[in-house]
């Protein structure tokens, strides 16, 4: 059995006096597609942001691909990670945000090529060639020269996915990537994600309120509540036969709110 690519060990995180994550542990296997679901404020975004090093942890350990994320091993001792170590670890991880976070002053092509050129020293021609492949994959090859402001929300999000993929991360984090979109634009983004899941062996962690999509997409579903994983299992187990009361309650509310499961 291969080693887990993500190993979260008893991490805690507070904002002020509010404990968002409380001794959270989880493991993700290479290539696994994971859906994180749960009520608002349960810490789903926070755990993704922690994995992307956008948020510090107060306690615990995280291993990515066999290496400590927030610590460095020096002479058998664990020290807090410095900026160089974090930069090295970030190469393994990419993230797509709810609000896209495209660079508004750069055209689509430059959005995608900027990071590979700067962080990996890829030559412009090679970076643009790869960007065209990725834009083609997300169905936006004809928008390479467009500015973000000229794109629809769905198109922006597809660019953001291509931009993250351009760095070839082993792990991709998706935080409610369709929840800021008009309903008719959701599907085009989900289609890209389906394609990614089918065609690559990337490890993917997805926070979503699209239960139907989570069901089809995920190998495993984690149900979060109040900073803990209350229940986890195969999509069918979680969505059809939830064992925990809180999971049942949450799913009932979601279905009542009109979401398809």
């Amino acid at each position, binding site marked *: 059995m291969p080693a887990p690519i993500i190993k979260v060990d008893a991490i805690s995180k507070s904002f002020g006096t509010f404990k968002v994550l409380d001794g959270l542990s989880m493991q993700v296997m290479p290539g696994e597609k994971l859906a994180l679901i749960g009520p608002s404020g349960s810490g789903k975004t926070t755990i993704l942001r922690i994995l992307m090093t956008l948020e510090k942890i107060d306690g615990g350990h995280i291993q990515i691909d066999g290496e400590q994320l927030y610590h460095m091993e020096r002479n058998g001792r664990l020290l807090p990670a410095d900026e160089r170590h974090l930069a090295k670890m*970030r190469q393994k991880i990419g993230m797509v945000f709810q609000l896209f976070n495209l660079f508004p002053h750069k055209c689509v092509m430059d959005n995608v090529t900027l990071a590979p050129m700067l962080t990996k020293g890829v030559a412009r021609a090679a970076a643009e060639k790869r960007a065209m492949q990725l834009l083609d994959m997300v169905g936006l090859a004809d928008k390479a020269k467009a500015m973000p402001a000229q794109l629809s929300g769905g198109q922006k999000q597809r660019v953001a996915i291509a931009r993250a993929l351009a760095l070839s991360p082993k792990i991709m984090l998706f935080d409610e990537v369709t929840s800021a979109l008009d309903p008719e634009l959701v599907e085009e983004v989900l289609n890209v994600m389906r394609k990614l899941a089918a065609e690559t062996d990337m490890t993917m962690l997805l926070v979503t309120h699209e239960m139907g999509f989570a069901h089809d997409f995920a190998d495993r579903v984690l149900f979060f509540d109040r900073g803990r994983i209350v229940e986890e299992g195969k999509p069918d187990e979680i969505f059809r036969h939830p064992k925990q009361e809180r999971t049942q309650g949450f799913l009932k509310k979601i279905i009542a709110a009109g979401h398809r499961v």
Partner: protein
Amino acid sequence: MTQWSGYLGLILQGALVTIELTLMGSVLALIMAFLAGIGRVSRFSIVRALATIYIEFFRGTSIFVQLFWAYFVLPFVGLSLTPLLAGVLALGLNVGAYAAEVVRGAILSIGREQYEACTALNLGRWQGMRHVILPQALLVMLPTFGNNAIELLKATSVVSLISLADLTFQAQVVRSQTGSTLMPFVSVLVIYFVLALIISWGVRSLERRMARGLDGVRV
């Protein structure tokens, strides 16, 4: 009539000096503004402290005093400047201190999500600043930079105090030589005003050029 044109020539010579001071002073102010403005948001406290001292010092003392120091005091420490250079130094450092706060404010006005995108794409701090934050912040700075440049233009007249023959100085010369007050002072009024107009117009067209295609910004 020919006499008037001779005097007008003097005034135009003064205008050239004023333009020269404004351009060179603005270049120095711009450099200082970016150094100190970026220094103010540095993660190194010593850099932040140096930037703060510079800004507070030059905003807290008057341009006259700064000019006198540049011209009369610096020679005592072995640095003798021409009147022009002393003027450029005082004006550039003074206006640069104000503009540094503009740079800092503009950097801080860029949303957290842009910084986070930089981190997620593994850009270094300086790479993100240079390629993502500053280009967007520049658009925020430009209108105020335009005001700063006009302030600088108006402040150039202080150099007449160290006998640099700028526009204001030449107007005084013409006045004392002709006894006429109206002609020289109307001319300098018009010239300052036209120069200021040129600056605003230039900055505004630069703004329009840079704003093209950007999210949520007037084009």
